């Protein structure tokens, strides 16, 4: 579960990125967060990942009070999440298999379990045959699927996708969101930030709209409007 209680974020330069945000996302939900550029979406993600701390308010994610985490607790907290970024953030010097296995290695999983789990996840995202490929041999859509596989491999309760379709073709974008949709069906909470309203409209999920640092709309029937 994600809970933002009266969260504000003011950067050192005085920019007020989020203003008194109250938000609750239950386990198993699929939520889109939409908003124009500069609305505060990225700050929201940074706070969720504990890349930034709020100026005031409390953030709870997966049972952790994120703003009170000590430095040494941050890695453990992040392992409870799966994160997908717009720019994929894959390690270019590693192949597909190693990029996915890396998320398991940091959690001290045995080599035997890694050998069992990674091929399974790669087959889920349709990349079993490309396990030995380097990142520069893959298309944008394929790279995003590798990122998704890496996010999934630890079996997280929550997947945060920050503009995951921002760098890929529209037809592939649908495929990625559809894949997230399938993952959501087995109980994983999905929080996807996007500015592609057309894409959001194709799925019948809750949509939270942020504008100028505040939540201005929170609708379960956004697609029908």
């Amino acid at each position: 579960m994600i809970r933002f209680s009266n969260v504000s974020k003011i950067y050192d330069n005085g920019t007020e990125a989020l203003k008194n945000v109250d938000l609750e996302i239950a386990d198993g939900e699929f939520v889109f967060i939409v908003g124009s550029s500069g609305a505060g979406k990225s700050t929201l993600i940074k706070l969720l990942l504990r890349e930034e701390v709020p100026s005031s308010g409390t953030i709870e994610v997966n049972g952790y009070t994120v703003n009170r985490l000590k430095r040494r607790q941050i890695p453990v907290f992040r392992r409870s999440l799966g994160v997908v970024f717009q720019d994929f953030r894959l390690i270019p010097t590693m192949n597909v298999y190693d990029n996915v296995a890396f998320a398991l290695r940091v959690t001290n999983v045995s080599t035997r379990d890694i050998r069992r789990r990674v091929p399974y996840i790669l087959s889920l995202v349709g990349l079993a045959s490309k396990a030995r490929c380097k990142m520069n041999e893959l298309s944008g859509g394929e790279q995003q699927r590798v990122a998704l596989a890496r996010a999934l491999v630890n079996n997280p309760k929550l997947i945060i996708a920050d503009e995951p379709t921002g760098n890929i073709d529209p037809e592939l974008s649908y495929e990625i969101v559809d894949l997230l949709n399938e993952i959501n069906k087995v109980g994983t909470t999905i929080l996807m930030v996007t500015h592609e309203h057309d894409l959001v409209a194709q799925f019948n999920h809750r949509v939270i709209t942020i504008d100028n640092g505040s939540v201005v709309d929170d609708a379960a029937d956004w697609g029908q409007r």
Partner: protein
Amino acid sequence: MRGSSFTYLIKEGARNIWVNRMMSLASIGILVSCMLLIGSAILLSINLNGMVGYVETQNEMVAFLEDSADDSTVSLVQTALENNENVDSFAFVSREEALEQYSEIVPESLMQSLEEDKEEVFPLSFRITLKDLSKIDQTIGEIESIPGIMQVNAPTNVAETVTGIKRAVYICGLGIVVILLAVTLIIIANTIKVTVFNRRKEINIMKFVGATDLFIRMPFVVEGVLLGFVSACVAYLLLWGGYSYLLNYVQEQAPVTVASFLKNLVPFSQVAKQLFASFAAGGIMVGVFGSMIFVRKHLKV
């Protein structure tokens, strides 16, 4: 940490060297150059010190015994010289030996003018070499105070000059090595900084998948150790080859007059172990601490 994770991190460090081979080569090149410069400066300093030390040992002083000195006086002086800490070596010169040596440098006509029992003219003496010429005045005083010693003749001016040169060589050598060390550290720090900066995205990704700081640092540290060690080996071999060649060349080409002087040049084998240990320790330490310090900056995510 599991054994398999540890092995993985070691392998990752080694793999990173190959994956970032151009940067690794550049780092090795810079490390080797710096080690060669420092090693050459150290060898130069050791040799100059050795040469000045040789000049030092060639400086003799002569202690003349009183005319009345007998065998017991000689053995008394001998014991006193043996007990003096600054006396490196000494040799007793009898009246006959003194006459013989004198006759080699004095024209024969002058020798003939001396009366019979010529050797009685020459007093018994000891030729003495010192360990540390800078203490020559103190040692002269000590020897003069030995009962039976009449007079001590010592090249005090030469001693002062040699001591001054020795001190200058030591200070200059130390200064050059310190300056080179400082320059080396700045260059290496920048090289590591650039290497880590090139991989900041990689570090960032590791942080977001939940890697601990130790897990991120380990491959960089392994990389630092390996690059430092390889550089130390390369620098050592190059310095060995270069120095040995130069030493042979100088000793073969040198005129006979300075040959005995050049015999005092230090062979590489004499300093090899210490030099390699310093290179390896220095290279590894710079690699490890440099990686740890500069990776730290990118861990604050």
